[in-house]
């Protein structure tokens, strides 16, 4: 299992050909109190960099992008029911969706944890 990070402050956990996507703790601290999450439909084919989900705080709406191309195979319904999970457990329970990875070469441009820490320092 490997976790990679994007410059859009998303994390991507790779297990075999499945990628689980969420937003980073840094991202949630910048968003503030999350009050609404909209998730993609299971079965939707996402292209890399396409807007896939929405996370809204009291003040503003932000897109969550597909960090890589792939088909949505599962979404976190618990998150839609309890959006505040994004604030309390961004790296864990607040995962957004899982993708069946279409092209592993797209993982190439992402950061590892050390690089991401440097990116947000």
């Amino acid at each position: 299992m490997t976790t990679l990070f994007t410059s859009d402050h998303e994390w991507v956990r790779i297990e075999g050909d499945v990628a689980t996507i969420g937003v980073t703790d840094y991202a949630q601290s910048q968003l503030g109190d999350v009050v609404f999450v909209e998730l993609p439909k299971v079965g939707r084919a996402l292209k890399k960099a396409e807007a896939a989900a929405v996370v809204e705080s009291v003040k503003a709406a932000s897109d969550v992008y597909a960090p890589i191309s792939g088909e949505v195979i599962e979404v976190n319904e618990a998150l839609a029911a309890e959006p505040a999970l994004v604030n309390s457990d961004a790296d864990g329970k607040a995962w957004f969706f899982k993708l069946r990875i279409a092209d592993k070469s797209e993982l190439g441009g992402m950061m590892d944890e050390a690089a991401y820490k440097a990116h947000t320092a």
Partner: protein
Amino acid sequence: MLASNESSLKRTPLHALHVARGGKMVPFAGYEMPVQYPAGVLKEHLHTRTNAGLFDVSHMGQLALRPKSGRVEDAALALERLVPQDIVAVAPGRQRYAQFTNNDGGLLDDLMVANFGDHLFLVVNAACKAQDEAHLRGHLSDSCIIDSLSDRGLIALQGPKAESALARLGADVTAMKFMDSGPRKVAGFDAFVSRSGYTGEDGFEISVPAAQAESLVTTLLQNPDVLPIGLGARDSLRLEAGLCLYGHDIDTTTTPVEGALEWSVQKSRRNGGARAGGFPGADKILAQFEKGASRRRVGLLPEGRAPVREGALLFADGTSSDPVGKVTSGGFGPSLNAPVAMGYLPTALSANGTKIFAEVRGQRLPLQVAATPFVPNTYKR
């Protein structure tokens, strides 16, 4: 670019205190202002409704309108040439909500006007203050001296514990009623205190000399009931209270009638009144009082959980391609624990309970036209 823009932003007398308290500073109306503190918008909002919230509104414009004759009625009569409100009837120690109108009946700004006995005290929006001051000088200099009180800070203390927090500093405020306004001593300082605000809660706005603002705020914040509140919660609080934000819900293209602000125009300034008309755009505005307007500002409650934000187009049904209106303010109401919005609709669709649709990310979301305030106000009448 960013650096030079930021360095040109003005600061209020409370800037250092905001930074020391962890305020997240953002550009707003030419000022560097705190949008939130570490507690966050949600907690700041709820704290204001249950305890007391302290807001820096020093960026707003404070002006004194002094009659050259020495008679405050002359300043009131002069100001009535620019606003559709009855200013003559504002008794000493009272204040009233007003709007500057343009020749098309639109709104140049909204403001508070207080009668301080020998002059009028005005509070106007930050983004409009230079233009408002020029407007006053251009039209009223024959009879009034217009003083910009730019050496004063302004804070708002709002919520059910605002009165006790202020009274604790020896301020004589417990007898004040909603919209009372006048000079008062607060913590030994020469303040102007009004019992009003922008949250729907009981509360006060306190003007003090800029040099004393930080000392007053530091003293108020020693009370655990009082938390500093940023612009984020200020916006969600006023939205739940159904209060207009100038430049968004009302502007130069909206009249007081279209803006559902008829309550703010007294009978004396309407047709048949003692001083009917005589303000810019009176023909159009007074005709709308008789015949109605084609569109109207309404409260909107989305049926789902998704916030519907400013700019979202409104549709009469789920499929039609022509929008009938637009959302002018929208977001999440923490006290209501639901999304809230306001916007403009054709008058025929403006009745409470009417079901309409907003387009959000390509989907049509159902909303209901709803009465405001969304959260009952707690003004001390």
